[in-house]
C-alpha cells in the first residue's frame, strides 16, 4: 500500500479490494447517515471524499460514490463540530 497521497482518479483506477484497504488505512471518518434504512458512511481521503452505501452495515457494501466537491458534506453537517474542524478530523 502506498503512502503517497492518491488523487481521485488514481483511487478510482484501483481494484475494489485495494480501494477498501486504502480507505481503511488512510480514510478519515466524517459521518454516518441512513438512506432507505441502510447505513451510509462518508470518509475523507486525501483531497476527496468517499461515501460508502451499505447493504449490510460493515459487511456488504452496495456501492461507493466519490467526489472532490464539498457538496457531499451537506447531509453530514450536523455531525461536524467546530472542534473537529479545528483539529482537521472527526473521530469515531
Amino acid at each position, binding site marked *: 500500500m502506498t503512502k503517497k497521497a492518491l488523487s481521485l482518479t488514481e483511487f478510482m483506477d484501483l481494484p475494489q*479490494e485495494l480501494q*477498501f484497504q486504502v480507505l*481503511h488505512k488512510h*480514510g*478519515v*471518518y466524517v459521518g454516518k447517515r441512513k438512506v432507505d434504512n441502510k447505513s451510509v458512511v462518508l*470518509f475523507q481521503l486525501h483531497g476527496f471524499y468517499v461515501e460508502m452505501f451499505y447493504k449490510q*452495515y*460493515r459487511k456488504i457494501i452496495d456501492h461507493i460514490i466519490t467526489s472532490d466537491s464539498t457538496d457531499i458534506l451537506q447531509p453530514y453537517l450536523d455531525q461536524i463540530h467546530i472542534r473537529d474542524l479545528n483539529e482537521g478530523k472527526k473521530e*469515531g
Partner: protein
Amino acid sequence: MTQSLPPKSLVLYADDDPEDIELVSEAFYAYSQNVELMTFRDGIELLNFIETIDPFHAAPCLFILDINMPRLNGKETLRRLRRIESFAEVPAVLFSTSSLPADAAFAKNFNAGFVTKPLHTKQVHMIIDEIVEHCSDEVKKMIRKRNRNSN
C-alpha cells in the same frame, strides 16, 4: 459430582453506535464459550459498572473503547481507567473509525492498542482476532485451549 465451570473472561466494550455494538457482539459469539462481552453506551456507563465489580468474582481481561462517544469519549475513559490501580494494567484497545496517527500515539501512551473499525466482512474477523490479540497471554492460551477442546 458437580464440576464448576471456570469463569469466563470479561470483555467490556463501550460504543454509542448500536450497529457497531451488534457487529462486535456477533463477532465475539465465536468466543462465547470463553469470553463474556458486556456492552455500554458510553464511557460513563462503563466506569459506573466497574465500580460495582467484585474483583474476587470476575475481572475484566480487556476494555474496548470507541473513541467518539457522547458524555465521555474513549480517550478520556482510557485515561480514567489507567488512574485506577486495579485497571491500570488491564489490556485496552481504542476502536476507531479512522486511522489517525495522533489517536494511535495516544493509545500507545496509555499502554493500549489501536484498531480501526472494519469496512466490510473480510475485515471483520481479522479485526476481532486483532482485538483478542491484546488480551493477556494467559487469557489467549485459555481461549485457544478451550476452543481446541470444543472442536
